[in-house]
């Protein structure tokens, strides 16, 4: 992924990339495997899917007869709900398994757990796991299509896709935009997926956070690092905040939540440095008063709830495309 990331930074991929006609991989393990054409295809397909949500009967038969298992080894409300709604709107048979009810607590390995589920012949497995690379491990042994719904601190591809879709809706493009990502860079899978996607599409991505949370090799990931939030936000088209996780709040990473907010918190005042039509994003869940002030979260520039809405459409698009891109039929009308 890394050399590609570098190529992408220097290579100035066109944002007006011609959409691909299909995805090359049968899995969605990360943004790392996607080129600009594939990303454009997913975003274009999302537009069609979004239209379905506006209908009185929000359901199409596209995935009828297909079984999708949502396998969540890490707690998640938003992403799991979003996938479940997306699956149901496409008429898939769905089943969600959360860690608390899984065999993992009984000492079974991940591979055995998934092989058992596979023995019941699902078509796709949507997976969230605390270990980076867990979906990659499974993709080597599974027959089902694997969709990565977040692996450790590695990638969260559908989040980056819904972020890109939301940005594109507002800005009409991705190329040439200045996107400032502020927060816990070190532990963020959202950062890694967004860095890959936005670089591929020709945006300029800034990464801002305390030096203690700056990943090694940050520039080679295609990011412009800064520890000065004003520098990141200045003239930004998009400001994206990353969650500061509770377990990081009491370690060596920064002295206190209070100081974090003072140095990096997104306030209305700081936001005035950005472009007048800036949009503010957050993958959620938010810590109000830590990485983002309520004034900003609920303010006129915030598109945070739009991101959530778009998440369903993006996941419908991904499910649809990985299922083979069959014609989307109308059932309701």
């Amino acid at each position, binding site marked *: *992924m*890394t050399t590609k*990331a570098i190529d992408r930074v220097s290579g100035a991929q066109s944002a007006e990339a011609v959409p691909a006609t299909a995805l090359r991989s049968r899995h969605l393990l990360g943004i790392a495997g996607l080129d600009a054409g594939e990303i454009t295809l997913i975003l274009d397909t999302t537009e069609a899917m979004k239209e379905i949500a506006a209908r009185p009967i929000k359901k199409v038969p596209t995935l009828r007869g297909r079984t999708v298992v949502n396998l969540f080894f890490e707690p998640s409300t938003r992403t799991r709900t979003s996938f479940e709604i997306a699956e149901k709107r496409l008429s898939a048979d769905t089943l969600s398994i959360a860690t608390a009810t899984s065999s993992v607590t009984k000492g079974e*390995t*991940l*591979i055995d757990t998934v092989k058992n589920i596979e023995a019941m012949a699902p078509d796709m497995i949507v997976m969230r*796991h605390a*270990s*980076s*690379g*867990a979906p*990659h*491990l499974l993709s*080597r042994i599974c027959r089902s299509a694997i969709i990565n719904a977040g*692996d*450790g*601190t*590695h*990638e969260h591809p559908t989040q980056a896709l819904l972020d890109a879709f939301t940005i594109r809706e507002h800005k009409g493009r991705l190329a040439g935009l200045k996107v400032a990502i502020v927060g816990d860079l070190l532990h963020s*899978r959202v950062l*890694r997926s967004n860095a890959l996607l936005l670089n591929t599409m020709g945006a300029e991505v800034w990464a801002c956070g305390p030096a203690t949370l700056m*990943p*090694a*090799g*940050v520039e*080679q*990931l295609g990011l412009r690092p800064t520890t000065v939030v004003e520098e990141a936000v200045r003239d930004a088209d998009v400001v994206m905040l990353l969650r500061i996780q509770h377990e990081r709040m009491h370690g060596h990473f920064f002295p206190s939540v209070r100081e974090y907010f003072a140095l990096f918190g997104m306030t209305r005042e700081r936001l005035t440095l950005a472009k007048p039509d800036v949009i503010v994003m957050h993958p959620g869940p938010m810590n109000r008063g830590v990485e983002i002030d309520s004034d900003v979260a609920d303010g006129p520039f915030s598109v945070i709830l739009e991101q959530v809405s778009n998440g369903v459409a993006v996941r419908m698009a991904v499910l649809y495309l990985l299922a083979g891109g069959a014609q989307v039929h109308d059932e309701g009308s």
Partner: protein
Amino acid sequence: MRKLLLKGGRVIDPANGRDGMFDVLVDGGVIARVGRDLPAEGAEVFEVGRGLIVVPGLIDIHVHLREPGQEHKETIASGTASAVAGGFTAVACMPNTEPINDHAGITQFILKKAAEANLARVYPIGAVSIGSKGDQLSELGEQKSAGCVAFSDDGRPVATALLMRRALEYAGMLGMPVIDHCEDPSLKGDGVAHEGLHASALGLRGIPGVAESIMVERDVSLAELTGAHVHVAHMSARQSLRAVRDGKERGVKVTCEVAPHHFTLTDEALDGAVKYDTNFKMNPPLRETLDRDAMLEGIVDGSVDVIATDHAPHHADEKMVEFDRAPFGIVGLETAVPITFDRLVHSGKITLGRMIELLSVNPARVLGLPGGSLGEGVPADITVLAPDRMVTVSAGALRSKSRNTPFDGWQLRGGVAATIVAGRVVYSEEGGR
């Protein structure tokens, strides 16, 4: 005891300044004569094939044999079978078994099992502290009497500077080295890969090179203070090499070893065609190119004393898990010679003589072991190398009980033709043992 005559090979014996076509006569388990055209005189003749090289038996001073306690990974029998197949006539085994080898009784058990296996010589390394917990010194004197050749809490560093100081003083009194797994636990944290671009890209928690070097620096200072001998295990970071060089220049008794994977691979391997392959997970981790190149440089310029494998067998089930849950370590006994030949000798970085120093002469010197020499009267531990043999590494064909090698499928030039311990052929390519 029967006689054996190795006939017709090129003998390289740096300890005795010998490099040429010689016959080697073994009698009673020791080397009786080295000379040209020796008569058989009733000895069994071992015809050394064309292009093969007769060298003092190779010694791997960093091996995990897993017995007692983890026999599903390796046993002393399977580990020594792996050793002789890899050309090693002797191995020194680390004490992190279950229970930890912190007691003469366990040392005796290991030696008994090794005698039963009757393949490679086994030199146990005793734990520095009871349970390798870093609190109280083990009975180092008793362990020495039982047969330990060095002390280490390997798998963990010697926990505190004070304990390391005392261990060096006490082991120094016994004339023994302390081998340290140098790693600052707080800097290592719960890291699983070298801190750098690839760990960042893959979302793996990083271990910086200085987690190692900071403790190498501590140990060099303490070796200087105490006048005792510290040996740095599995060195991987360029900063550590600098610390060792500085120590050596000041006359400190510090030696170090590098594992084949650390002079061959880099952390980029984690982000290859197959990502998150746990056969690339070891501790210390594969580091970046600058570090790998520094290890090569140290091997070439003499700063590195020893090549040792850190042979760390793990069961396939233990490795087929999420990357951050997999145990650290790879097997190394059967790939060390092909890698060393291919990457160091045939690439022109080092001479054959230097290779033998790194794999035989210096390991013997560092741990004060017999061996490393083909001088008359010394135990007849001999390795016959096949420098031009093309070897395709096959994990499934390893003699080790475990298969966790990152080199599966690699094609390498250079192998082992035969291994002879105390005058007895314990492995030969033709014999197919």
